[in-house]
């Protein structure tokens, strides 16, 4: 006995494939497929068989010679999802096999459905054939390359362009930010300090005349951990926080940085991290983010 098994590769093949006669019923179906139409055949009991058979499977009676165009749309009755297609499968990416009852038919056609994913598949899904180009159709079940779901959603692009100005109060605040300071406004009537600077008091409506400069330190009052990327944030997840600047009465929203997201907490003391003076512009991007100072937390 040889130590290794003797193994030979063996192929069973009829080179070029068998030539099969179709008979008039299947031949009619395949001829119509070549022309881009799907037909069924009517039985004596007035049922429409798709694909057509020579004899009614229910009664054994010959079918009539009444061919009925069906579909092209149909409804998925049952399906199975192929994640890894085989060499002989009609599609080379994940797809579904399906029993498709074409509109006007009483039986279902077995074919492939090119769906974007398994979640798209369900009984009742409406599908339509995707035909091979006419020049490649030869009268074969694969003249229908596959079925595809009917259109139920579309992407609509929305884009408009604007030139905007910040308004006087924000422009004034940004001048301060360019110089590395926070400019606030104080309502003398309410005795409230607002940062960013504003020209009217949101509480009483008074005109705010008094400007004052606040330090770039404060306390986190609340925060959110964001898991969707944002071009302004250093990484994902990032934290956006409400920060009560020392001396202000309302918090300002800002990014947090130089700290893991899960370590940010209410009452944490923070300080602005500025870009170098030579890079500063009239923009909030002058402040990279707020970072912990290391001082003890503040009781809110």
């Amino acid at each position, binding site marked *: 006995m040889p130590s290794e098994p003797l193994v030979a590769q063996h192929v069973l093949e009829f080179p070029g494939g068998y030539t099969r006669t179709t008979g008039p019923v299947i031949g009619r179906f*395949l001829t119509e497929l070549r022309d881009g139409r799907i037909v069924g055949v009517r039985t004596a009991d007035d049922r429409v068989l798709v694909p057509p058979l020579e004899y009614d499977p229910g009664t054994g009676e010959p079918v009539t010679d009444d061919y009925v165009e069906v579909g092209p749309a149909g409804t998925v009755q049952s399906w199975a999802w192929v994640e890894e297609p085989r060499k002989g499968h009609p599609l080379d990416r994940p797809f579904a096999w399906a029993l498709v009852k074409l509109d006007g038919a009483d039986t279902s056609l077995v074919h492939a459905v090119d769906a974007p994913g398994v979640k798209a598949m369900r009984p009742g899904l409406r599908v339509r054939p995707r035909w091979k180009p006419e020049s490649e159709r030869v009268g074969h079940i694969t003249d229908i390359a596959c079925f595809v779901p009917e259109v139920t959603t579309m992407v609509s692009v929305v884009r408009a362009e604007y030139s905007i100005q910040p308004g006087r109060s924000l422009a004034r605040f940004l001048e301060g930010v360019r110089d590395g300071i926070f400019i606030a406004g104080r309502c003398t009537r309410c005795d409230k300090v607002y940062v960013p600077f504003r020209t009217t008091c949101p509480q009483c409506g008074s005109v705010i005349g008094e400007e004052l400069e606040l330090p770039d330190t404060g306390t986190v009052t609340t925060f959110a951990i964001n898991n969707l990327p944002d071009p302004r944030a250093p990484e994902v997840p990032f934290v956006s926080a409400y920060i009560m600047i020392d001396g202000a009465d309302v918090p300002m929203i800002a990014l947090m940085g130089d700290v893991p997201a899960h370590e940010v907490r209410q009452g944490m003391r923070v300080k602005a991290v500025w870009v170098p003076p030579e890079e500063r512009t009239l923009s909030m991007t002058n402040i990279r983010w707020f970072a912990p100072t290391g001082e003890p937390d503040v009781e809110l």
Partner: protein
Amino acid sequence: MREVAVVAFAQTRHTDHDEGLNEPELISPVINEIKERSGLSRFGFTCSGSCDYLAGAPFSFVSALDAIGAWPPISESHVEMDAAWALYEAWVRLQHGDIDSALVYGYGKSSQGDLREIMTLQLDPYYLAPLGLDQVSYAALQANALGADPDALREIVRRSRADGRANPYALDLPDPGEEGYEVRPLRPSDVAPITDGAAAVLLAAGDLARELAEHPAWITGIAHRIEPHYLGIRDLARSASAADAARAAGVDKGPVDVAELHTQFSHEELIIREALGLPPDTVVNPSGGPLAANPVMATGLIRIGEAATRILDGSAGRVVGHASSGPCLQQNLVTVMEA
């Protein structure tokens, strides 16, 4: 109707790989086992079931006769189907009354090719085969049409594999673990394993049966029914042909102690149980069934043999063997045997 019984059954220790045996070498031990146990060296009729596509060679079943010994010439026949249908032919042949014994055998080495794609070749050549619809894919279409409960399927797999581990002839397969889908909704363990193997049954009539076995498994009903081939014109969630065959074989005429079902996919057990109307206390596939060993073309015959064994060993009084053929349980054969 002439009394005919299963009096002996033999099978190989099935393997999940090619043992390097050719077909006559695979069959010979089980034939010899039948000859030794029965003391018969010649049979009134010999009938086998196999599939040339498994070997990829035409008329491969002819060379299998080398394992039988066909000289002086013997009366022989073959079906290109599971050997359960060879048993049916042998049973019919015994009804003629001129012979008293028939040897039935089946074998298959599905390790040699790609069984899933070989099974595509049995589909109609106009509408289905050109799509490349493979065996697991069409079974998955049926499983989805049934809407089978995944937990129920998992339990069928678990039970079958556990029973298979206790059966020295079946494969040793572990309890199903975490696994993805083969073709959704079927997972790899829902699919019968690739298996090589063979089996043989000896049928005998009347007094010869009583002479050869202490408890012959008398065939009191045997019938097969087929339904249309194309999947899109059938209700895949049910097996009308299995139900009709069961009725014709008289499954419901008494209790059923044991049923061996030719279910190559876990969901098929749910369909066949219902079609056969099996009572809840019937023990199903105590051998592990096809999910534990599936030597294609012998698997159906093994169901009859395993069920008969429960009568031959005196442990059951009335049993059912079921065999199936074609895509999505297209054809079904039901055999009722009684002590």
